[in-house]
């Protein structure tokens, strides 16, 4: 029981981070039908930039309050990632809007490789540790161990998601985004500036990704040039699980995937009689992805669109 609650909590924390990243995939897919393969790398960049800023500040004055230092890191990382995503869309994806379907996907893979290796050249191959500067408190809930950081992560992710929800449902930009997702042609006729909407979509997704990147590195205490790859794939799986293109679906899918993964890792040993252990954690996301795509390609909340012959 304690293990169950503990894993549930761990899953919830991871899941809310997945959800934050999944939103970026789902928004871009909703509008462009493009799997923005590079999104995971944007997340990684967010973590790396923030850590660099944090390192610099602590280098100047190690006495600065931790929360403030991290906040400064985030405040630099978010615009940096937004700019990056803006540039990626403009340079790599925009010229290919009318190209055959696989072309932009291949480009996206290319961008992903570029970012990953650029990060490796800039920050090296080694793990970068997240300094222990955030206030640490821990509580016991139903026999499980909960830290203040975990609570903070979940709360922040929920807030961000609520904010995004409001943006998409209530603002002019959100309306334009929804219209564009429905039909680019119609939106254009209604006077929506498609290019701006698409840029905005990338930029908003990147902002969420940057924050997710900082959170995940704070949570694990580590960052690495390779971290965006797995995180991105899992977040994408989460988006598919929820129903790609569907914002509420990405949130649900992220949370569910986090929980599935945590429980799976916690119990896989028992299920397989000790044959497989918790280092198979990464496999769950892929199994979920494959199962969903095979049995319910529209995801949990997605609606099935009939095809035309």
């Amino acid at each position, binding site marked *: 029981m304690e293990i169950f609650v503990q894993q549930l909590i761990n899953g919830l924390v991871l899941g809310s981070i997945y959800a934050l990243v999944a939103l970026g995939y789902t928004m871009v897919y909703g509008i462009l039908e493009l799997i923005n393969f590079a999104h995971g790398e944007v997340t990684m960049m967010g973590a790396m930039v923030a850590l660099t800023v944090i390192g610099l500040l602590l280098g100047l004055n190690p006495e600065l309050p931790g929360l403030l230092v991290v906040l400064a890191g985030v405040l630099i990382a978010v615009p940096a990632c937004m700019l990056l995503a803006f540039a990626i869309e403009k340079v790599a994806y925009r010229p290919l809007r*009318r190209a055959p379907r696989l*072309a932009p996907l291949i480009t996206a893979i*290319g961008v992903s490789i*570029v970012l990953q290796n650029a990060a490796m050249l800039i920050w090296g191959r080694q793990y970068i540790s997240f300094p222990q500067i955030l206030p640490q408190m821990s509580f016991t809930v139903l026999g499980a161990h909960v830290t203040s950081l975990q609570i903070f992560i979940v709360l922040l992710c929920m807030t961000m998601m609520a904010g995004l929800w409001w943006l998409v449902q209530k603002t002019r930009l959100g309306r334009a985004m929804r219209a564009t997702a429905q039909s680019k042609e119609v939106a254009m006729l209604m006077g929506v500036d498609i290019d701006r909407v698409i840029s905005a979509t990338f930029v908003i997704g990147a902002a969420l990704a940057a924050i997710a990147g900082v959170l995940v590195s704070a949570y694990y205490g580590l960052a690495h040039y390779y971290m965006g790859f797995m995180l991105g794939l899992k977040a994408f799986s989460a988006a598919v699980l929820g129903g790609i293109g569907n914002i509420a679906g990405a949130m649900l899918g992220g949370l569910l995937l986090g929980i599935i993964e945590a429980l799976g890792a916690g119990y896989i040993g028992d299920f397989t009689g000790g044959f497989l252990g918790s280092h198979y954690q990464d496999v769950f*996301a892929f199994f979920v992805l494959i199962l969903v795509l095979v049995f319910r390609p529209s995801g949990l909340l997605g609606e099935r669109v*009939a*095809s035309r012959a």
Partner: protein
Amino acid sequence: MLEFLRRPRTRAQARAAIILLAVLLAVLPFLVEAGLSRSWVRVLDFALLYVILALGLNIVVGYAGLLDLGFVAFYALGAYLYAWLASPHFGLHLPFWAILPLGATLAGVFGVLLGAPTLRLRGDYLAIVTLGFGEIIRIFMNNLNAPVNITNGPQGINLIDPVTIAGISFGKTQQLFGITFSSAHFYYYLFLAFTLVTVFIAYRLQDSRIGRAWAAIREDEVAAAAMGINTRNIKLLAFAMGAVFGGVAGGLFAAFQGFISPESFTLWESILILCMIVLGGMGHIPGVILGAVLLTVLPEALRYLGDWQRAAVGEVVVDPGDLRMLLFGVALVLMMIYRPEGLIPSRQRKREFHAEDGVAAQEQASLYDSRA
């Protein structure tokens, strides 16, 4: 090169060209060894191995239009099977000609197993699912060392038997007919033979009933089905065929290296092979060959960047090995934007990518609405 061979002006010219090419290929490792170094002969071997892999993946991606990002899984299966059956790991030492067909079959079967549930997915979903499959295989290879040691985990499997033909072990340097053959030389000729067979099969498949069915599916899956093509089976066939080449190449790789570990079978290997196809010209055999050779040789040439840096600044500022993938990424993006049809594309492909109202640009809706 092959293009020239396919469109010779006269029969005599054709014969001359073929003889010239044959002689060149026959003496190439010695030329390379003399002109550069023995390590370059190894590079040559790898180039041939990648030609096999790229032509295999090309059946899936280029012919049938299915983006497979998990191709390396089949390569890994072939390699591990070879290692299991010809190394001290399980104490088995089967001959290579017995293992390769097994590896090919195993890979083909896995191709069908993976393809059966996933092939009705639309292109980009298929890409991600195959990618996931590749990662799953790698994670298992990495972890199946306990409680029963099957793969030996991240350390990989060592001391794999070299290929032995007619009592000659390809693993060591030997004198034959008064000529010194190193291991790399032996494997060069072995790989060359496999490459030629692969090229032959690739051409024959392309120009056949099956090849036309693949092309039809790539062009318009709905119309292909409505013309009587069993799209699921034909796509599975492409998957299985590609996998077979992957499996064979994996076996060759294991024997050649004498050592394998999960590190050799990452997603990036799949992407590298895809890059070769894209760079050279998807679906076009000479293009794919060129792409494979370029992307094997260029990174090796990049190593000289390190020497130049040392000469210029006194130290290696940027490790050329690290630069390799970065340049691949840049090349991939630039190719897709400026020359998506590849360096030497087939005439058809060129049209496809440059047609304003191209059929390829039209959405390939999935086939079945109510039963999907």
